[in-house]
């Protein structure tokens, strides 16, 4: 009798919960890994959300969601509270996203930077940041006096290694004596660690600082030390007006708008998106005139060529650190090779942490 009562109570509560949450209006949810004011990764995703909101589509976001046990609950709550499309904007949400997607087949999920699409309602998307790195490499090779480029790296995943390689290859093309020094900080966002890394690289003779981390600390250290730097994720120019040559901007807005409209109109399909300069998912902030109008013109031309496909960041011949051929002369690396990249090219110092 008691058990029966408990069971009926549970089912009533369940029904109540579902009926309260049923809602017809089309809504888009966003899950962020950091605060919206980080001026880097999350800030740009939030800008993308604002663009969707500007269309008159209702959106919701949850910021600073830890990538541990909490992520699944937040994603599930968004799905349960009537959101039709959910963007989960950090790699650590990969498994929780797929898990929730299984239980909500009518809700669409978009996971940034992951590789698992276990259900037909999960898409993945990322940007070809390495195309931006090629432009940075060109500028760095031309601007360095010490022939040493300092690179603050986060985790030894293919995306980061691809960036290091693309930058080094482009720098070598304009300056064969270039050396790339790397400090691994094993974090995406830690102003303290990032500024220490920047200082260490400057002390080792680097007069160009670039970062694959999200805080504005490295460019501020570079500004103080009087060396050149590049901003990451968003236009960081105002944090280091003299030092920054340009920033790689992640522009998620067009993609978010396109996918939100598709989901609303019922034309959304599963896909794996990898957009770059061509589609505008990777954009460049205004170039600093301090590098001279000739160089600015060169870089602008290279940017056009990369966008049109006339140039490719990974054009052969490319050698690894030991001198083995990675890409033959005249060939370009295919997306499969880029996606799994786990070796340095020649000219990068040190080993990939394993």
């Amino acid at each position: 009798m008691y058990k029966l009562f408990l069971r009926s109570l549970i089912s009533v509560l369940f029904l109540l919960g579902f009926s309260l949450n049923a809602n017809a209006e089309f809504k888009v949810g966003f899950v962020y890994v950091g605060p919206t004011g980080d001026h880097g990764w999350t800030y740009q995703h939030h800008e993308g959300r604002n663009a969707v909101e500007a269309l008159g589509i209702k959106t919701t976001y949850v910021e600073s969601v830890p990538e541990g046990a909490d992520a699944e609950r937040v994603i599930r709550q968004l799905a349960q509270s009537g959101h039709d499309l959910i963007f989960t904007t950090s790699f650590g949400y990969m498994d929780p996203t797929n898990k929730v997607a299984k239980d909500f087949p009518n809700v669409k999920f978009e996971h940034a930077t992951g590789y698992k699409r276990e259900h037909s309602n999960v898409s993945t998307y990322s940007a070809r940041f390495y195309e931006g790195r090629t432009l940075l490499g060109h500028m760095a090779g031309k601007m360095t006096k010490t022939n040493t480029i300092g690179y603050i790296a986060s985790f030894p995943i293919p995306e980061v290694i691809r960036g290091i390689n693309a930058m080094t290859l482009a720098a070598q093309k304009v300056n064969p004596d270039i050396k790339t020094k790397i400090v691994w900080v094993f974090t995406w966002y830690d102003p303290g660690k990032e500024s220490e890394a920047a200082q260490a690289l400057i002390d080792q003779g680097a007069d160009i600082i670039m970062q694959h981390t999200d805080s504005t600390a490295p460019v501020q250290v570079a500004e103080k030390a009087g060396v050149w730097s590049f901003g990451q994720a968003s236009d960081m120019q105002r944090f280091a007006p003299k030092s920054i040559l340009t920033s790689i901007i992640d522009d998620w807005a067009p993609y978010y708008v396109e996918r939100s409209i598709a989901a609303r109109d019922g034309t959304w399909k599963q896909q794996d998106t990898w957009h770059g300069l061509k589609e505008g998912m990777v954009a460049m902030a205004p170039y600093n005139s301090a590098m001279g109008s000739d160089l600015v013109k060169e870089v602008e031309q290279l940017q056009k060529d990369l966008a049109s496909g006339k140039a490719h960041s990974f054009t052969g011949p490319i050698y690894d650190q030991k001198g083995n051929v990675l890409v033959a002369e005249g060939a370009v690396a295919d997306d499969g090779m880029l996606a799994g990249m786990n070796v340095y090219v020649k000219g990068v110092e040190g080993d990939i942490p394993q």
Partner: protein
Amino acid sequence: MIKVEKRNDVSRSIYFLTPILAIFLTLFGGGIIFFILGFNPIEALKFFFITPISDLYGLSELLVKATPLCLIAIGLSFCFKSNNWNIGAEGQLIFGGIVGGGVALLFYNHDGFYVLPIIILSGAIGGMLFAMIPAILKTYFNTNEILVSLMLVYVAKLLLDYLVVGPWSNPEGFNFPETRQFSESARMPILFDGLRIHAGIFITLITVFLSWLILYKTYLGFQIKVSGLSLKTAKYAGYKGKTMIIIVFMISGACAGLAGVGEITGPIGQLHRNISPDYGFTAIIVAFLGRLNPIGIIFASLIVALTYLGAETAQIFLQVPKYTGQVFQGMILFFLLGSDYLLFFKIKFLGLKKNEL
């Protein structure tokens, strides 16, 4: 002028009622904050404290969130009751997770009912050993356990970082800093289909019961209490202080280790860098809010867990900033300490006397 006097007659029932008063004051203070931020305070409080647990899934999530907090806080109560300030439960949780996770990886693709118990046990032992470091350093080298246990949190975190980036990272995971997903045999059994509440809750309940038994029904519990009240008395009574310090740290570490292993074999299912959103530190609030009493800690852990869920729900439905959750946790502690002060001390407002002028 104002004079502060110690009260000698503190009633026991009021002592246990002040946490409830603190919670009400927090609700009131929270309402004011919501009002200042431009939200309807009643509606915001409803989304914060009622909506998250208005369905079965929410209740299950509340228990999932409260389980590690309760376990750690119970362990901490042994330390705090005996005046041992173990601030490093977070590190003990992570180290327990590392040891338990390592065993889980060892048993990868290995079936058998014995796999999970071995993992849980090794996690508890891991946390226990890690907590013995500050205890032994304190007893034999007179170091400060607050500092040592706190600094060891960073050691555990860096060790976990090293392992998931390097030797233990998923071979098919493109170098991302995480291990494989553990096999089914290494996961906590789920109690209800579709909910995340898992068998870890039984471990917690058993631990709470055992703690109550030890604290209130054994000689060891008596010793712990006496040392907490007066170290001199304890020495005079001939209690072996050193052994006791090590034992309370071992209990505390084992509980934190259990919490860690419960997280990785329960809702997470693998090792990565974010296995705990600072449960070890939040549990300190839980322990004091629960008056270092096992039953009190159960309620305290549920309330603090609710502030986490509430912050998420309030953001989803009203876009209230997520950090209000932390503001609520801070307020609860503030009001509790504040009312404690007034409970133990009398404040007398005296008129200015002529000879003082």
